[in-house]
């Protein structure tokens, strides 16, 4: 800590030197907000008209500009897509703190807002491999079952895939689903899914900003190899009480927000709940007297987001936010009393402090908890199993602008992890029979970083950073230096070439053998035997502003993956006291190219993305003799086309089309004769699996369409959103299986012992046909 501040002090001295030698300079800093509700605006452009100096607001809405003073006054210009640009002429006699507000751009309502970044900024930023989506964008696009899902919207971006049909998984540039750092208001979310991966935990009504980094990671991020998904919650309307919500096919939502003290403090509460169980309960009740009726298990999920903020003075703001979500599954009968629930809890306390026009700090304490619990009881016996990961994190970040050419960020963080891995308890009520399993582990993860956005020449800009990440657990200590570098060179004002390198380390690992995210997946720390996973990614690309509406981006990347964790064949990952014994370690690589062309302005907006990629893993002692293989999510080609057309103020139509090479699957190559098949089978034959993932399922493609019809009653506005998922009813493969064929139909009982099949057929199972959905949304 002291070394960090020493370094910053040196930089401050450096800045002072500039100040002393350039007395005609001035610093302007402040926070940019939405005038209608007081929300801070992330990524708003702030510029000085007279000098051309400019910047964008950071994730807290804060900006600082150090510029030359050419006269007694200067003109500050602020812009943000969807808002009317504002200019303010201010005195330039001394450094000034200037909070700015932007009003909605009512004159240009027909334009669909795409992103907080302007086209120019997307080209000129050093940051590459980043994707932004706005909630407006996510809300108008066709939604699966009518549930707006930011992760499914992100899956439409190049380099990001879902892993399987309908899933809210994230597979980014060859990474696995567990290699994504997902943070909600800076608190880590371990399992970002509901309903076995079909929906994400993020309630779109409560979200302000979503950004995903696929590479070129800024130095403040670490802990996962492949991506960083940074989700920021709204702060709450500090101008007036307002609400929004919606009634959908499977869930309803309600958000209320308003000032606690106008302009000084506000709150937001947002909830969502599914009601499938309410319907199935009615069906069960109606069939209570039917002896042939099989009771339908009850299932629901819900989310609750809350946030309050308090402006403690001109320089201090305190934010408190939390998330609580659960999936609840229950099945009770005469024989069983089965309960299964899982979910995340997060909490964030954040203090923003502005020291002066050049210094800004953010101090955050976060809490994260993910757990699942299964319990069952049968007469005389009980069974329970669960896992839990609980984190408490403290971090402190400072933002410092010593002179116009440097924007320095630095910070430290520490996290205490507590893992309860596969805690099982089973036995008879009388205590005669008893089973137990589980491990309790603790770990400490820490890091320090410093980075500088350095304007070397007008054309050349660099982001130079260094992070030191460490981890201690079970007597093992790891220290990982993680250099970060990003370069941007402007060939013209509208054409930039960019390059980046980032090393990431991952100390906490998901123990899962399934292609989809399951609630029973557990997280396991690095130990003496389980080394941290690492990735080194280089990327090279170029961004080109075409006219005033389009941005063309093309990136090439290569990623080396070290200490990758996989699992031995038939690994026992459930209720195992020696989980590490099931791990096997190797490495891998991924490379590819991504192209996208985006249109951000006008009635028609959207993008076309294409990804060409290859992924390999190998050198696992227990897999294929160490030979390299492709993981299931090795998708060679991936195309997405997204279009949104605002016909008029009342009507918007949208469409998406995706195409991807079929995922890989592992099918048996041979079959053998064996008379003592465990579990009993009509045919004494077992499948023989050879090399992994050698068969590619048929290509995937699907089109979704949506219509948003808006109404503007006196009390506010509302809309009817109609989505049609898989509009041309494409039967995409969810999985394949091989089935013996018999010359006669044996019905539900299946073939009797000794029945001889006359062949084997390959069957493809699809998950979703054409699925229309309707959601009514309101806002007041």
């Amino acid at each position, binding site marked *: 800590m002291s070394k960090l501040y020493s370094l910053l002090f040196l930089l401050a001295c450096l800045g002072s030197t500039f100040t002393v030698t350039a007395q005609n300079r001035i610093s302007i800093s402040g926070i940019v907000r939405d005038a209608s509700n007081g929300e801070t605006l992330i990524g708003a452009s702030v510029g000085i008209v007279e000098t051309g100096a400019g910047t964008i607001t950071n994730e807290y809405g804060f900006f600082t500009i150090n510029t030359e003073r050419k006269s007694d006054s200067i003109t500050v210009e602020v812009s943000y897509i969807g808002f009317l640009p504002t200019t303010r002429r201010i005195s330039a006699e001394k450094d000034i703190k200037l909070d700015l507000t932007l009003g909605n751009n009512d004159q240009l309502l027909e334009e669909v807002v795409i992103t907080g970044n302007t086209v120019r900024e997307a080209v000129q930023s050093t940051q590459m491999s980043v994707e932004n989506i706005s909630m407006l964008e996510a809300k108008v696009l066709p939604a699966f079952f009518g549930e707006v899902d930011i992760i499914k919207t992100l899956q439409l971006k190049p380099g990001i895939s879902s892993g399987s049909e309908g899933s809210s998984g994230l597979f980014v540039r060859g990474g696995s689903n567990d290699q994504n750092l997902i943070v909600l208001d800076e608190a880590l979310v371990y399992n970002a899914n509901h309903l076995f991966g079909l929906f994400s935990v993020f309630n779109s009504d409560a979200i302000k900003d979503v950004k995903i980094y696929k590479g070129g990671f800024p130095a403040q991020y670490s802990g996962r190899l492949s991506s960083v998904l940074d989700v920021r919650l709204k702060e709450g309307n500090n101008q007036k009480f307002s609400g929004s919500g919606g009634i959908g*096919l499977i869930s309803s939502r309600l958000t209320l927000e308003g000032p606690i003290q106008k302009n000084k403090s506000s709150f937001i509460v947002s909830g969502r709940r599914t009601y499938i169980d309410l319907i199935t309960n009615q069906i069960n009740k109606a069939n209570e007297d039917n002896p042939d009726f099989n009771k339908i298990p009850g299932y629901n999920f819900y989310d609750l987001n809350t946030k309050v903020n308090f402006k403690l003075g001109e320089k201090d703001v305190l934010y408190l936010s939390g998330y609580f979500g659960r999936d609840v599954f229950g099945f009770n009968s005469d*024989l069983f009393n089965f309960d299964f629930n899982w979910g995340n809890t997060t909490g964030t306390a954040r203090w923003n402090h502005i020291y002066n026009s050049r210094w800004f700090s953010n101090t955050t304490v976060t809490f994260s908890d993910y757990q699942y619990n299964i319990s069952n009881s049968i007469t005389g016996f009980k069974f329970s199993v669960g896992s839990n990961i609980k984190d408490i994190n403290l971090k402190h970040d400072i933002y410092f602008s010593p002179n116009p050419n440097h924007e320095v960020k630095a910070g430290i963080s520490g996290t205490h992890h507590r893992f309860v891995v596969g805690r099982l308890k089973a036995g008879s009520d009388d205590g005669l029979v008893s089973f137990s399993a589980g491990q309790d582990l603790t770990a400490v993860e820490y890091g320090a970083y410093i980075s500088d956005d350095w304007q070397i020449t007008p054309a050349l800009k660099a982001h130079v950073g260094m992070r030191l990440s460490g981890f201690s657990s079970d007597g093992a200590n790891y220290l990982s230096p993680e250099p970060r570098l990003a370069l941007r060179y402007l060939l013209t004002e509208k054409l930039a070439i960019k390059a980046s390198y980032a090393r990431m380390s991952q100390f906490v690992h998901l123990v899962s053998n399934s292609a989809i995210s*399951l609630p029973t997946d557990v997280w396991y720390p690095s130990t003496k035997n389980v080394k941290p996973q690492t990735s080194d990614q280089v990327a090279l690309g170029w961004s080109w502003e075409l006219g005033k509406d389009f941005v063309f981006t093309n990136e090439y990347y290569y990623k080396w993956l070290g200490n990758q964790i996989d699992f031995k064949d*038939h690994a026992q990952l459930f209720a195992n006291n020696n989980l590490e014994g099931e791990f096997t370690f190797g490495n891998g690589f991924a490379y590819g190219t991504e192209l996208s062309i985006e249109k951000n302005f006008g009635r028609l907006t959207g993008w076309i993305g294409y990804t060409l990629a290859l992924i390999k893993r190998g050198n696992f002692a227990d897999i294929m003799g160490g030979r390299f293989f492709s993981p299931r999510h090795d998708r060679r080609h991936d195309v997405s086309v997204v279009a949104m057309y605002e016909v008029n103020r009342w009507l918007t139509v949208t469409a998406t089309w995706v195409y991807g090479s079929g995922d890989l699957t592992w099918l048996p190559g041979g079959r053998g004769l064996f008379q003592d098949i465990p*579990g009993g089978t009509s045919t004494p034959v077992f499948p023989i699996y*050879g090399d992994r993932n050698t068969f590619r399922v048929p290509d995937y493609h699907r089109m979704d369409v949506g219509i948003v019809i808006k109404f503007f009653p006196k009390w506010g506005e509302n809309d009817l959103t109609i989505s049609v998922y898989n509009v041309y009813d494409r039967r995409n493969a969810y999985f394949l299986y091989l089935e013996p064929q018999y010359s006669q139909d044996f019905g539900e009982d299946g073939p009797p*012992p000794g029945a001889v099949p006359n062949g084997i057929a*390959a069957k*493809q199972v699809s998950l979703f046909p054409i699925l229309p959905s309707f959601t009514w949304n309101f806002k007041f």
Partner: protein
Amino acid sequence: MNIKYISAALLIIIISLSACNLEKQIEIVLPAYESQPVVECYLEPGKAFRLLLSKSNSYFDPIPSDDLLPYLEALLISNADVRIRYGSEEVILNNQVTVDFETGKFYNYSASAIVPENFSDGFELEIILPDGKLITANTKLLPVVPIDSISIEKNANNKARCLVYIKDSPDEENYYRRMLHNGSFLDSFPQQDFITDDKLIENNIFVFGTGYNYDPGDTLYNTIFHIDKEYSDFLTSIQGAISSNGNPFAQPGVIITNLKGNANAIGIFTGLSYDRVMSVIP
């Protein structure tokens, strides 16, 4: 019309749509597959030495259901040199088909020699295939773990469940295979058949139970095999390979075998030690 009815109507629409045929047969071409020898050999004290030596084939190879015998004959590997050694004894298994009418299993190599009782040292299998390639394996006979007690309990509807207790030795790592047949253990599928171990047990007592599924007069055959880790791994891998076909959440895997040598063989060479108790539901 209130929102409950609207939601119910929409749910019916979804269920109707989901009832669309989402499964179809497709043509696929699997990668080329090279046949491997498959060995199934159990040493059961008091019974003759016998072994089934066959070869695997491509998963999609046709099965002539109308004339099965030539097909099965083609699967068997003949003219191999098969020997089992234990202590100072060597048993040569001749290439002849025998059937065990008690279990319904058949073998294409057997000897008249009987597997000794209570032989605690190792057995060694050696097979020299007609092409000269070698298969070897080693195993031991484990002691029988007896069924300690069986408890039949009934509920208010006069339905019975069966609880089977065994005592586990705390000094060693033990593996078990539990089977439950109703009616007959030969001509019916087992109602339970799974592999377990004693790693999680706390007070050395295992219980294997059932639901309240049985009526008076039902005959239950409870069998507890005491198996070694190699056989447990083999059975687990067979079970895993079978169950992962058709389960999108499961990960397939290769068959874990205790056969060695240069023939790339799969299969199992193991002793069989079990206790079986028949119970009639009163």
